[in-house]
């Protein structure tokens, strides 16, 4: 492995194609043995939600995800890493976020994808506002303490 993996980071309004993103990492290569993909979708909260509006901090969103991705590349032997985060108005059932981690073996790919998502949740500058199905504007989604704890576990010595 060359060790010179440059993560692909995209912050965009448009949807993404999960299969195309996986193919983009693996096409023409015979050294990748594992690809772990996580996609996060917008839920309708039992019909209560008509959309989520994602606000982001342009510039910092790319920079912060870049920092998290660089740490993942340092920590695990990855052969490819793609992170896409959407912003703007997103309807239930639509994609919000994608992490694709490729490695020789599954463990590194699983752990890196997991690490990326835990850190994205608590450190990437995005905020979700709810639009309700009855036409009214809902509130801002509150951060969950559990997400902070999920990120903290990566700073503790691993078993």
């Amino acid at each position: 492995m060359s060790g010179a993996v440059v993560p692909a980071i995209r912050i965009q309004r448009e949807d993404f194609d999960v299969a195309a993103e996986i193919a983009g990492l693996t096409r023409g290569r015979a050294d990748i043995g594992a690809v772990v993909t996580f996609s996060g979708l917008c839920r309708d909260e039992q019909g209560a939600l008509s959309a989520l509006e994602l606000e982001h901090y342009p510039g910092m969103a790319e920079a912060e995800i870049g920092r998290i991705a660089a740490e993942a590349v340092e920590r695990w032997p990855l052969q490819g890493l793609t992170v896409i985060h959407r912003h703007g108005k997103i309807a239930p059932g639509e994609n919000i976020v994608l992490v694709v981690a490729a490695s020789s073996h599954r463990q590194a790919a699983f752990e890196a994808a997991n690490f990326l998502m835990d850190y994205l949740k608590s450190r990437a500058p995005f905020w979700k506002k709810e639009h309700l199905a009855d036409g009214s504007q809902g509130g801002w989604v509150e951060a969950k303490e559990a997400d902070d704890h999920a990120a903290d576990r990566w700073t503790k010595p691993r078993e």
Partner: protein
Amino acid sequence: MSTKLIYFAWVRERIGKPDEEVELPSEIETVADLLRWLKSRGEEYENALQYPDVIRVAINQEHVGHREKIAGAREIALFPPMTGG
């Protein structure tokens, strides 16, 4: 030297603007000092920064703690805990 302040999510809504240029008084050294000073600038700021502990801050697009010095900051962003992913 003026500093650009940027607000996001409910901090932006409560303050009523997305950003502004301010001249910071020289006695403001840390992020905590800045939050205290901003809070005294009017009802909308008081409302947005009522609980300063929950406010997250980035200087020049990097996360910082409330004890961080702000000398030389071009851009300081204030926002609620993040809910991406």
